[in-house]
Structure formats: structure tokens, C-alpha cells
């Protein structure tokens, strides 16, 4: 009997023609939005998690400035602070990075990008903490190296200058000649990929600064608790600067904290977007209800006939609920196809725009089945009231209706 009700519902939907399609459109817009947003959101989540996994889980980052404190950005991190960090119990090693926006010239072309000075002793720490690798050329700067440069992906891939920069080429950074000795792997972020790394002593000369670190990185010992160590660094630096708790003019982060913070923000953004999509789905449900009421109204005589032929109230109820459920399901299925298409389009555009695979839509069978099931339920719920009205029609009255 269920199969017959299903067939009757399909026939009725087909008979509805354009109206059925328009009704289903209300559902498929909502489902398409939800499928694309969830798949992109999940993709973004896992991409970010993957990025964080590349970074060292046992590295603490100390940066100058406080986000929530006026004037907090003016503070500096110096060798004195670096020494404090190094002496904290549980810190294996620590080092600082100097970084400045610089003018870079190559074969008559000029560009601007960040240049970072690395302490040769902390190169492993830096590579661990940022997840980058040396893909070609000299593996590490030697302590005797000066005016040598390891260049970011954008330079050697040819994204910055007309000609890609090669090992052995000469770059002019703030009017000083640098010999390119290594290629750094692609990070996926255009700004980071346009970074150039030079030995720290050369950087101090070039920028005319002694010790003004953009970040201090500290690696914890294998058996140390990273949260305890970061808390101790925070306390020691605060005491050294004579600051009260909560008044810090520096920040301490671990990758786990960053990952959690980013995750919370992403979840919130995704929840808002899905909420908006859910409203459109609700409107789609109201559309189904409207169509079903119209259908009951138009098919009053048919309902009376079916009752005359022996249909019970629940038979009529099931036929109409099935019909609305089917409209939801078909709308949901189309929505899934459109949603997947949209997600893939965004993925493609993002890859083209950002030149990386950072956003990969994660389309899982669970997501698609869940979306279709959800559409079916919305369709059924939307159809219950009209179907109940249909089922309670008196056969004599319904047959007389014209």
C-alpha cells in the first residue's frame, strides 16, 4: 500500500508541473545553501587543523602588544625578554625573529615584501613552529653567513617578478645585494609566501635595529606541560615589566590556543550563515504548505471520490503527507546537487584567487543523506496540516464540491 501511495504522490507532483517545481525551489535554495556552507566550513576547519598540525605543538609564541589595551602595540620584545624566556623552567630553547617591510628589487623590477631575520641557531625551531621546509638549496644558514636569502614560494614560482627568482640570483633588499641560496616551501597564504628570510645579524645591520623582535618562539622540553610553561613565561615577563595581571602589553600563544580560537570564530560564522540558510528553508516549508493547501482545495472532489471508493481518513492523510514529503525530498536532492556545485565553485575560485588548496569542500555521504532526510522531514511536517484537512473532508461534501 505504501508503494501505491508513493506512486500516487509522484503522479500528483508531476501533475502539479511548474507549481511543483517552484515549490521545490523553495527547499532546494535552502538545502543548497546549507550543503555548500557546511561542506566549505568543514573543509576550512580541517584545512586549518591540518595547517596547525604541521606546526609544532610544543612551541610558545610571544608577541609584542596587547589586542585589548590602548597603546599596547607600542611595546617591544628585546634580548632581555628573550633571556627571561630562555631561563623559564621547561623551555628547551628560544629565539627571536626580526621582521620589516622592505623594498625588493630584481632585474630592474621593484616590489615590497616582509623580510625576516632568523637566528641561525633557531632555524630548526622556526621551521618546526611555522611548518615550512627548505625545498631546494642550502638547508640552513651557517653562523658565518651574511647577505644570503632564502626566498618564499611566490618569488621562485614567478608570482612576484616577470621572471622567477632562482638559486644563485642576486636580489636587492633595501639597496643591499643578497645571494639567493634556498627556496622555502609554499605556505598557502600569499603574504607569508612573499617572505624572505635572512640571517639575523644581517637583518640587524640592514634594518638598523639591535633587538626588536616581531616574535619570540620558545620550544618546550618533551616532558613539560606547555600550558604551565606559557603561564610561567607570562608571569615572569609581567613581573619584569612591573605590570598587573590583565595589563600585559605582550601576548603569549600556543598553537592549540590559536587553533581553538580560530575554531570558535569559524563555528560562530558558520552557525550564523546556516541560521540564515535555515530561514530560507523555513520559507521553503511554508511554500510547500501553501502548495499543499491549494492542492487539497483543487482536489477536493478527488478526495471525496477516494473516500467513496473506500479510502480511510489515514489513507488520505498518508497520500498527502507523502506528496509533501516527496516534494521536500526532490527539492532536497536538487539542493544537494546545487550545493555541491556551489561549494566546488567556491573551492575553484578560492584556489584561483589565493593560489592554494586552502578551501577544500568536504562533501560527505552523511552530509548529503542528512540533508535529503531533513528535506523529507520538512516536507512531511509542512504537509501535515493540509493533509489533515484533506483527510477530514466529508465524502458527500467533497464529491459535491466544484
Amino acid at each position, binding site marked *: *500500500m505504501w*508503494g*501505491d501511495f508513493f506512486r*500516487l504522490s509522484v*503522479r*500528483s507532483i*508531476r*501533475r502539479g508541473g511548474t507549481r511543483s517545481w517552484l515549490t521545490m525551489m523553495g527547499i532546494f535554495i535552502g538545502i543548497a545553501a546549507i550543503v555548500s556552507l557546511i561542506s566549505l566550513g568543514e573543509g576550512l576547519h580541517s584545512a586549518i587543523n591540518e595547517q596547525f598540525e604541521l606546526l609544532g605543538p610544543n612551541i610558545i609564541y610571544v608577541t609584542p602588544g596587547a589586542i585589548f589595551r590602548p597603546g599596547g602595540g607600542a611595546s617591544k620584545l628585546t634580548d632581555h625578554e628573550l633571556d627571561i624566556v630562555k631561563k623559564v623552567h621547561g623551555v628547551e630553547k628560544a629565539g627571536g625573529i626580526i621582521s620589516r617591510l622592505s623594498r625588493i628589487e630584481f632585474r630592474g623590477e621593484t616590489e615590497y615584501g616582509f623580510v625576516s631575520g632568523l637566528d641561525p641557531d633557531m632555524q630548526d625551531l622556526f621551521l618546526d613552529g611555522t611548518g615550512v621546509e627548505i625545498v631546494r638549496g642550502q638547508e640552513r644558514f651557517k653562523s658565518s653567513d651574511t647577505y644570503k636569502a632564502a626566498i618564499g614560494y611566490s618569488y621562485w614560482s614567478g608570482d612576484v617578478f616577470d621572471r622567477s627568482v632562482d638559486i644563485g640570483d642576486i636580489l636587492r633588499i633595501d639597496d643591499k645585494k643578497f645571494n639567493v641560496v634556498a627556496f622555502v616551501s609554499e605556505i598557502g597564504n600569499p603574504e607569508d609566501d612573499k617572505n624572505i628570510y635572512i640571517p639575523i645579524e644581517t637583518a640587524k645591520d640592514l634594518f638598523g635595529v639591535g633587538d626588536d623582535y616581531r616574535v619570540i618562539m620558545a620550544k618546550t622540553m618533551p616532558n613539560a606541560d606547555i600550558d604551565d610553561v606559557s603561564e610561567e613565561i607570562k608571569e615572569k615577563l609581567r613581573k619584569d615589566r612591573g605590570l598587573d595581571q590583565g595589563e600585559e602589553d605582550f601576548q603569549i600563544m600556543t598553537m592549540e590556543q590559536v587553533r581553538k580560537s580560530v575554531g570558535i570564530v569559524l563555528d560562530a560564522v558558520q552557525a550564523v550563515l546556516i541560521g540564515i540558510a535555515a530561514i530560507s528553508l523555513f520559507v521553503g516549508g511554508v511554500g510547500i504548505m501553501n502548495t499543499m493547501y491549494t492542492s487539497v482545495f483543487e482536489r477536493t*472532489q*478527488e478526495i*471525496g*471520490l*477516494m*473516500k*467513496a*471508493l*473506500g*479510502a*480511510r*481518513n*489515514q*489513507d488520505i492523510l498518508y497520500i498527502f503527507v507523502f506528496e509533501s514529503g516527496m516534494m521536500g525530498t526532490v527539492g532536497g536532492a536538487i539542493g544537494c546537487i546545487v550545493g555541491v556545485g556551489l561549494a566546488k565553485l567556491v573551492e575553484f575560485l578560492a584556489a584561483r584567487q589565493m593560489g592554494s588548496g586552502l578551501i577544500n569542500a568536504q562533501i560527505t555521504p552523511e552530509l548529503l543523506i542528512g540533508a535529503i532526510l531533513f528535506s523529507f522531514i520538512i516536507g512531511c511536517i509542512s504537509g501535515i496540516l493540509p493533509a489533515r484537512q484533506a483527510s477530514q473532508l*466529508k*465524502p*458527500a461534501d467533497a*464529491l*459535491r464540491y466544484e
Partner: protein
Amino acid sequence: MGREKKHNGPIIRLDDVWKIYQMGRMQVEALRGLSLEILPDEFVVITGPSGSGKSTLMNLVGCLDIPSKGRVFLRGEDISRLSESELAQIRGRIIGFVFQTFNLIPSLTALENVILPMTFQGIQRYEREERAKKLLDMVGLEKRRHHKPAELSGGQQQRVAIARSLANDPEVILADEPTGNLDSKTGKEVMDMLSRLNKDGKTIVLVTHDINLLRYGDRILHIMDGRINERGGK
């Protein structure tokens, strides 16, 4: 689907039945204390002018409506004691309907329209299809099984409706103006078909205002102002 055991007494009995409609502040008495018995194998013609209460009577005889007062018995059972679902099921088994406007479901083929009443009785698919095919063959529509109502002539549609009315092998065929939308030749074919069914043991209740059809009835019930005036038949 076997035919149910025949009831010895009247198949349908109306006992002092009143049907009163409330029209705003006015009450309209469509049927006034009407009593009637439909016996097995009868061909009963109910006739009367427009507004006489014919349609109201047909609804009560067909158990499609309940009276305001009085009682209606279907095979000896008071229908007011049945739930709507029970009544629908029994009605589907005992009474087959043929309407003036054919009332076929436009989205279904002829075969599917004939299958429909059997679906509501929960008959197995294979059995339903076989039976529906036989019924369509019987009414001469073996080549029109898969046509939709819009692709059939009026006469063909009414024949599909007759086949549908026989789907659950009912005891009674209730035909409401079955020739009203047909030309005289096709109308005669339909009436001859109903006559044959009556000879084969079906009880026929024909509701019409066409005096040319009175000759088919064993018994003619003339309804006027909600009351019955019984006359003889052929």
C-alpha cells in the same frame, strides 16, 4: 478478493431518515422521515426533479453521509455505530459508485483508476492488476488500459468508471445520472451494461431525472419534497 457472503435481509435500509441542512438562520429539510429498503438483486431507480432530495438520498444510500435523524443500516449494521474508517472500508467493499461526471483521477491510467479501490482494501498488487485487466476487458477497453482519462471518450471513461465500481466485487452499484454526460447511443450502451450486471446478480441503484431510464428499474422510487412516492417498475 472473494465476494462477501450475501446478506439475507435488505442490503441498505433507511429508517425514518431526516436530513436537515442549516443555511444561515434557515433550516432546510432535504429528507423528511424517509424509510427505504434496498433488497439484493434489485434494480431500483430513484427519480425526482431538481431539489427534490435525490442527491441527499443517494449520499445516504451510498453511506457517504449520515442522517440528521433516523438510522441507516448497511447489511443490518447501523452505520452511526461505525467509525469513519470502518465505514469507508465497508463502503468500499459493498458499494460501487458510478458518477455522472465519471470522476476518474486524471493523473492515473484507466488500469490504475480501476486498481485504486482495491488498493484501499489492501489487495495484493498482482491480484489487483489481473482483476483490473479482466474488468477492463469486460467493458471492452482492453486496448485502452494505459490511456489516461483525457485520452478517452466520454463513453469510454464511463466504462472505466463501471469497471472501477466492480473492482471490489460489491453487492450494490450506485449510479448517479450515469448517462447525464453521454449521447443517447453511448448512454444506452452504459444502461445495457448496468442491466447485464443486474442480471448477473448485482443490486443496482440508479439515481436519475431522465424518464427514459425508468424502464430499466424493477422498482421506481419517486422523490418529491424529501419524501418517497413508490411506483411499480417494469
